[in-house]
């Protein structure tokens, strides 16, 4: 095929409609044809003399990676044309608003930033679970469906942990978008899922403040500044910004990947539970780091080399979220200790594991209005006190543990919903004591949870 197709041309059964985008690497058309049940686009790379050499490799990478991905957070893959004959990629046209729509109109309200960030973090976690690192997360590569779910697009420079990395040796200079590029990408690393968390931090920063944390440098030296210089704290630019949100953003933007969140699921967790974020001086400060701390960062940056990462799935497996369901209402010390003993083996202080302690209480139906509200609040506080009391012997640092009191007539359903929404990797739940009348009811909860949970479930039983 010479040149680009015209409207009305038919390629392998796909009819070319209007051109919707023309970029450096390729051109995108809307296409119609085989009934898939969703709208489609066709991407055609710019090949041939005078066109960028990367175009063909990024095309191959996108075809390989997209073809291997599934789920609601990526465009559905339809077909690919042979590179030797007619190179093209047909995929779902994702309907929704690009995240770029929120950018450039001044600071976005914090609650909205948290909602958007949570959606992107959920999408990234789904990607990372499939062993793929996106490496080009930026507002124009995220589309928000009407449902609120985020979809990541453009996998041209992505890395799939199980496939040969066609881009690894081919192009020595860092690929990606300067404002969002992680320090390790600047140094050429392409296999760390936490690079995407850095980019997410840069996006959140931009949404909150209307500014890029590190500007848009074009020179290698300009790009390397982020290895040691911290960005202006968002709260210095937007005084009303909540401390917890700055805490999350700056933790994503840590120059050393090991200092960031361990997984996108953990970012999502904090964005979804602002009241559970432990705010440190990082979240409070309104000035950049002092000379002393800057010096430390600078010295660390000199010796900085990207971590060697085993694989994205192993990285994720090393940083699980554990949910423990604590039945505060009817329990005894033996059962409490048995539950803690199990949790102790799973959640170790100082490791990137996180523990969510949850208790589910039934709504109080006999009261209405303000009274009911008051009763519920006091009930909630009592439960929180008990949860903390239960967890105290674990001696976990506050960043690693959170407490949640949920109100529901269907405890198993509430726990399951929580586990799904928060990417929980392991549920620990007690089995009911046999001699308690409530046993039957509790038994139903642990049975239902272990049958339906999306993850591993440990049911803890006390002997005797």
């Amino acid at each position, binding site marked *: 095929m010479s040149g680009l197709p015209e409207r009305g041309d038919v390629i392998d059964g796909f009819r070319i409609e209007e051109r919707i985008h023309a970029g450096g690497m390729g051109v995108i058309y809307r296409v119609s044809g085989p009934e898939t049940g969703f709208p489609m686009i066709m991407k055609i790379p710019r090949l041939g003399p005078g066109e960028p050499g990367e175009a063909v*490799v990024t095309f*191959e990478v996108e075809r*390989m990676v997209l*073809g291997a991905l599934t789920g609601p957070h990526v465009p559905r893959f339809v077909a690919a044309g042979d*590179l*030797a004959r007619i190179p093209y990629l047909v995929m779902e046209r994702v309907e929704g608003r690009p995240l770029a729509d929120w950018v450039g109109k001044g600071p976005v309200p914090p609650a909205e930033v948290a909602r958007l960030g949570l959606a992107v973090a959920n999408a990234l976690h789904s990607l990372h679970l499939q062993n793929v690192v996106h490496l080009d997360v930026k507002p124009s590569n995220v589309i928000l469906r009407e449902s609120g779910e985020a979809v990541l697009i453009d996998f041209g420079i992505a890395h799939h*942990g*199980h*496939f*040969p*990395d*066609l881009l*690894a*040796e*081919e192009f020595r200079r860092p690929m990606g978008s300067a404002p969002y590029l992680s320090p390790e990408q600047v140094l050429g690393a392409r296999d760390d899922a936490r690079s995407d968390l850095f980019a997410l931090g840069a996006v959140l920063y931009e949404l909150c403040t209307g500014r890029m944390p590190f500007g848009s440098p074009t020179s290698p030296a300009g790009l390397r500044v982020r290895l040691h210089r911290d960005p202006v704290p968002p709260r210095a630019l937007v005084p009303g910004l909540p401390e917890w949100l700055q805490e999350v953003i700056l933790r994503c933007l840590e120059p050393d990947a090991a200092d960031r969140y361990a997984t996108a699921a953990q970012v999502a967790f904090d964005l979804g539970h602002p009241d559970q974020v432990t705010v440190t001086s990082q979240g409070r400060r309104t000035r950049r780091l002092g000379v002393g701390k800057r010096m430390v960062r600078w010295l660390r940056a000199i010796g900085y080399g990207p971590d060697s990462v085993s694989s994205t799935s192993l990285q994720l497996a090393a940083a699980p979220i554990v949910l423990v369901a604590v039945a505060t209402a009817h329990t005894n010390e033996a059962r409490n200790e048995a539950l803690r003993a199990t949790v102790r083996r799973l959640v170790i202080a100082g490791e990137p594991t996180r523990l969510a302690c949850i208790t589910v209480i039934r709504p109080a139906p006999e009261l209405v209005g303000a009274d009911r509200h008051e009763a519920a609040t006091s009930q909630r506080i009592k439960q929180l006190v008990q949860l903390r009391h239960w967890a105290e012997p674990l001696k976990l640092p506050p960043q690693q543990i959170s407490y949640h009191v949920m109100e529901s007539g269907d405890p198993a359903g509430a726990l399951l919903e929580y586990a799904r929404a928060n990417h929980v990797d392991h549920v620990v739940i007690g089995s009911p004591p046999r001699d308690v009348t409530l046993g039957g009811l509790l038994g139903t909860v642990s049975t239902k949870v272990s049958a339906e949970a999306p993850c591993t479930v440990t049911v803890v039983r006390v002997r005797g």
Partner: protein
Amino acid sequence: MRWALLADIHANLEALQACLEQAGREGADGYAFVGDLIGYGADPGAVIDIVEEHARHGAVVVRGNHDAAALENSAETMNPAAARAVLWTRKQLNQRQVAFLDSLPLTARREGILFVHASAASPGQWTYVTDPARAAESIAMSKGATWIFSGHVHEPALYFASGSGRPVPFKPMAGVTIPVEKRRRWLAIIGSAGQPRDGRTEACWALFDDVKQTLAFHRVPYDWAQAAAKVRAAGLPERLAHRLEHGE
């Protein structure tokens, strides 16, 4: 065609049978044995018989250094354990089996594919392809093959090269189907079926689909306890039994 690729079986009957069984389940309809059918293990005759049967039905078989050594009944360049195994092996083979080994070529070609036990740069010199530089030599001397399938080195590896640069090494993960399109050139070290050395005991084999242009490296558990017991019973060096038990 869906090629089942096996290398370095080394007279390990249990490993060979396990690989062939899995290859059958995965829908293989072509077979290639890229050298070192024998040496080290206790079942040289039985292994040759199975491979010969496949060859009669069109399988590709090329010669490895252990096959050559058994033919020449000499093992001057080998380590003592391997040398003892070579001399022992030769005594187990009947005339027909020796004749089959003698009929094996150093290389074989099919459309776009080169099968060679060690480096294509010098097939009879048995050069180990252990790094990108060696892979580059082998690819350069393959006379334009798109896919080169080799053994000799016992750990699975995949090298890919595009036009200019040095081939890039990749450590494949078992069970993953990798696109290996003909725009690039690919050199795959299948990994040893009969004497894995990467710390795992499972036998290595690979499945190459020449229509879809995909390659999947596989590992299959087999009865290595039995294979090791036979090595000991045959009076072969203890080290050869130990290797099977530990994949080293």
